[in-house]
């Protein structure tokens, strides 16, 4: 990172002047806590107490054998409290908000995982919490809305635009413009400086744990690390600690959706163009005239138009390779991991697994692939059930209506 939160030419802090004092205060706070042993002790203690970290490093022997080739392992971030890696950066940011004397938190959410984690952490720390969620996500991730509300958060459904994550981010920014004394707890490694660097800092524990666990389990570092890429928080979490290990190949898997036509996918690095939006310079899906284009993914958490500026930079530098997996491939991966290994993956994470299953047979048996299972799949109940057992879902819905 060079000055002002730039990664090469990506990143930066492109916000209305009214938000600059709040972001400067946040950036300064982040610089202080990075090397403050008292803060870091509290952060790591909280991760241990709430999430039971370190999370498990789990071999996938049956799938490895079935596919032939590399040995597969998953880093099970789904074991975190609230079901995904998101709570790692929520804890970090909320502790920073407390330290800065903030009383009110604003957050956006796509799949609901970041909102759910934010609501839980805010409840624990006694912070007021408002979560913005696109109407489409609000409807399709209803269980998470319920959990957020049970945890005392105010959940606002956003009716603008495509009613997904992008619109939730904009609504959250507008709230922040009207309430610059609030703390915006942003949910991915995107947005204006310091968010990309800060969320990476709070997530890098994932890769640090993998380093140790993989050495213990296999006697070597991974040959491949894979993560799904929406905004990029779980990907930066697994990748960061291995950036300087040239032997470790890093692969980000984007949402291929229903196909590569515009509006049918969310593959920003592979199909997007450079732009500056929502506070940062990166790759965005656009219409060719500078407007932001629509996205689609079966997984709400990947259904977003932009990507972390750090990932954009590392893609250009060819340090991270980008692939995509379709909706169907992700759903098939959910089913395969459930049946063969006994884990129900979040649809987001399943994209990374889908690519790993293509890669593994091309590898030798002494190679190790580690996949970030960024979240567990209970939140997708109604989406996957509709796909796998529509009849049962309809019967259950009728039962509930009785």
């Amino acid at each position, binding site marked *: 990172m060079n000055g002002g939160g730039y990664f090469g*030419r990506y990143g*930066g*802090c*492109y*916000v*209305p*002047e*009214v938000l*600059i*004092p709040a972001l400067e205060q946040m950036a300064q706070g982040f610089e202080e806590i990075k090397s403050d042993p008292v803060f870091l002790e509290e952060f790591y203690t909280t991760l241990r107490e709430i999430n039971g970290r370190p999370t498990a490093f789990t071999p996938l022997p049956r799938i490895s054998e079935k596919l032939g080739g590399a040995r597969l392992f998953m880093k099970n971030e789904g074991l975190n409290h609230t079901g995904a890696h998101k709570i790692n950066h929520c804890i970090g940011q909320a502790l920073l908000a407390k330290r800065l004397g903030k009383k009110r938190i604003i957050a956006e959410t796509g799949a609901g995982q970041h909102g759910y984690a934010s609501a839980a952490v805010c409840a624990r720390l006694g912070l007021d919490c408002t979560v913005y969620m696109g109407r489409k996500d609000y409807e399709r991730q209803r269980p998470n809305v319920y959990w957020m509300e049970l945890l005392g958060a105010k959940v606002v459904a956003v009716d*603008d*635009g495509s009613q997904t994550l*992008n619109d939730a981010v*904009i609504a959250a*920014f*507008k709230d922040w*413009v*009207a*309430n*610059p004394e609030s703390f915006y707890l942003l949910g991915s490694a995107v947005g204006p400086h310091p968010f990309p660097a800060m969320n990476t800092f709070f997530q890098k524990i994932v890769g640090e744990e993998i380093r140790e666990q993989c050495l213990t389990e296999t006697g070597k570092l991974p040959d491949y690390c894979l993560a799904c890429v929406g905004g990029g928080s779980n990907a930066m979490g697994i990748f960061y600690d291995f950036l300087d290990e040239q032997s470790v190949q890093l692969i980000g898997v984007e949402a291929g959706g229903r196909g590569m036509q515009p509006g049918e996918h969310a593959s920003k690095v592979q199909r997007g*163009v*450079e*732009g*500056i*939006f*929502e*506070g940062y310079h990166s790759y*965005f899906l*656009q*219409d*060719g*005239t*500078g*407007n*932001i284009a629509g996205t689609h993914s079966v997984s709400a958490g990947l259904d977003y138009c932009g990507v972390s500026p750090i990932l954009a930079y590392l893609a250009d530098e060819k340090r991270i390779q980008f692939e995509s997996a379709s909706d169907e491939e992700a759903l098939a991966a959910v089913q395969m991991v459930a049946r063969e290994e006994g884990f129900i993956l979040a649809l987001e994470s399943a994209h990374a697994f889908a690519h790993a299953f293509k890669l593994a047979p091309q590898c030798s048996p002494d190679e190790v692939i580690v996949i970030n299972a960024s979240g567990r799949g209970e939140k997708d109940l109604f989406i996957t059930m509709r796909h796998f057992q529509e009849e049962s879902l309809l019967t259950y819905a009728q039962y509930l209506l009785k």
Partner: protein
Amino acid sequence: MSHLVLGYPTLQESIATAEQYIAAGYEILELQIPFSHPTADGPVITQACRDAVEKGNITVEDCLGALAGIREKYPDQEIIVMTYLNRIFAFGLERFCLEMEALGIQHIIVPDLPVDSPQAHTILAQKVQLVPVLAANVHPERLDKLLGMGFDFFYLMSDFKITGSTFSLHPRLQEVIERIKTANPLARVGIGFGISTAEQVRLVTTHADYAIIGSTLIKAKMEGRLAEVMADLAV
């Protein structure tokens, strides 16, 4: 100073509205090039931008054509162009600045472009000037830095809110204006966001050089009450 979204509801109608503003004697026209996701605007302007982009497929080129038409008819009318960074980043920043210069437009407002970012430097190397959009929370050191950069037009947000919100005037704005005027007596200051009555226009212009009216006029246009609302706003 009055604002409209080019291409809403159609390019022709937006040009006609601009002419209506000129006829009513608004000193400055603020013409917005629509962007799909206007992150600092409230529901009224967002809707107008979305309609212009989605229904009208309005491009930057279309807007430049409209501006050229207005300029030809009204060579001395002061026009400020407003848009969001990604739209002109995609068009080409230098190319956009040259187009502005050719149209005799001296100021542009890009709310999501901090004036000390690399892209702002590209713009500032050209003739067109950026208008910083500030609020009452601007730190004095930050303001002094901007004043040192030679800006001569400042847009102040009436309060902490998005465009089209209920009007209020933040008490600290007066200090900001005084600091600007002390450093550069020739600098002009406009206040916008939420102004919807003649009384508010009068109040704002006791502090600033211009009251900037946007959402109120666009909403009036949407409701077919533009002439009536413009008459109500006259001071």
